[in-house]
């Protein structure tokens, strides 16, 4: 019996080793038209993907084909939203509110500080963070009630120049420091840890998504999405089909990119690099688990 287990383990190891040998990267699989929607934010809720359609002051829930399933209207420039099951967190740039929708019922997120154009929000268990665009700062709360504020206008480490998006992960807070053209990483006391992407000559880092191994950044004016590892080393540059990208998320293993002005979502899959394809743009070769 022992030998059978050993043989089985060996087979699994061989199979894994084979898997590791195949060079993979993110490849464009399909384009989903979202006619009439200019998606600035995307978030995955219990019903599917919600889009914030800032130009038309609404949120839109879409199905797999990009068709509108339902909408939440009468918002004031909703931006980078976030979701947790049935709860939607909506920063409204126009009226300086962060609204919370629980099964489409609206509540206002109470803050003692006044915001000036909240552009992004992140929810991670009880923790919440807000990118406060015109105040050049990030607000962060461990319990969703008492917030600390960090950052000021500037170009030094820890400063911001119009932060547009934020994401909380287990240990860090990641900020798309849009017009400083970089990503900044902080601990949960708001202490600056590192900067990512300064060598990439980004032109408006408008959206960020962080998974356990990668950091995706929407490089708006350069029509590309950059994929870094957590140490800030560039892994891949997504350019195929990408035009004025403003938001990136990952859902069910796929990466979704919103082409803001073209009313479409691009879907990328983690696939083996086709034979003969050059390593470089869109095909940067790397191996890791997803």
């Amino acid at each position, binding site marked *: 019996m022992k030998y059978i287990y050993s043989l089985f383990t060996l087979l699994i190891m061989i199979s894994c080793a084979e898997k590791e040998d195949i060079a993979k990267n993110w490849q464009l699989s399909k384009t989903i038209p979202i006619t009439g929607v*200019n998606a600035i934010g995307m978030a995955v809720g219990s019903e599917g993907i919600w889009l914030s359609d800032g130009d038309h002051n609404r949120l839109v829930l879409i199905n797999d084909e990009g068709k509108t399933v339902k909408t939440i209207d009468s918002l004031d*420039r909703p931006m980078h939203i976030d979701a947790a099951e049935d709860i939607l967190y909506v920063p409204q740039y126009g009226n300086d509110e962060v609204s919370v929708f629980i099964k489409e019922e609206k509540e206002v997120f109470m803050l003692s500080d006044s915001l000036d154009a909240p552009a992004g929000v992140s929810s991670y268990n009880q923790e919440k963070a807000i990118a406060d665009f015109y105040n050049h700062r990030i607000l962060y709360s461990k319990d969703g009630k008492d917030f600390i504020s960090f950052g000021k206008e500037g170009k030094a480490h820890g400063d911001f120049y119009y932060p*547009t998006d934020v994401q909380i992960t287990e240990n860090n807070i990641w900020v798309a420091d*849009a017009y400083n053209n970089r990503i900044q990483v902080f601990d949960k006391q708001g202490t600056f840890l590192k900067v990512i992407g300064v060598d990439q000559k980004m032109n*408006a880092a408008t959206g960020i998504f962080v998974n356990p191994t990668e950091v995706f950044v929407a490089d708006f*004016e350069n029509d590309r999405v950059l994929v870094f590892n957590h140490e800030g080393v560039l892994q891949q540059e997504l350019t195929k089909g990408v035009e004025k990208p403003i938001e990136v998320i990952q859902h069910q293993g796929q990466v979704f990119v919103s082409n803001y002005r073209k009313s479409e979502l691009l879907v990328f899959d983690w696939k083996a690099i086709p034979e003969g394809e050059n390593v470089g743009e869109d095909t940067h070769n790397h191996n890791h688990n997803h």
Partner: protein
Amino acid sequence: MKKIVFIVFAVLMAIPTVQAQKNYDQFEVQVDGLGCPFCAYGLEKKFKEFKGIKKVKIDIETGDFSFTYPSEKALTIVAVEEQVKKAGYTPMSGRVIRHDGTIEEMGGVKETIAADAEIVTESAFVAGNCEMCQARIVKASTDVFGVSTAAWNKDTKLLEVSYDKNATTLDAIEKAVAKAGHDTKNHQAKNGTYKSLPGCCAYERVEY
């Protein structure tokens, strides 16, 4: 007591009537280069802060920006044009429809280039980042008398202008562009003007 209640009631009833009688002028401005929503919505937001302004609306796709303002304030279309520029945006055309139906258009008639003009085409480096920069650079160039066409490429940062060499010079065009907030090879924009540009236009400054 009855009398007081009656007076309060009468005053409350009168308030909506007074408000309804307030006249508003309708302002419509066509703004170019609204590529980035964060900055485009910023224009709307900045104007919302003006006391008395109502119905502020911006259509990002068309660049149509409109609002109403109390007629008694006699806000001019020139003042609006200046305010839009000060906020870092590029007004291309505009008008105000006064409450009595009269219409005032933005800008005067541009002088036409002479028939015997000697048109030359030249290029110059102009710092900038985005579509909003592009709109501002092109407008600043074509507003110079003698310039027939202008185009700026955000990747190469080159401004290509065709102009009547008897009417203006490349240096004068560069000066106008710098005045609008963009560094050129030979002329630097004032710090204050540069700082008033929207966030997306915060280009890397030229070192002289």
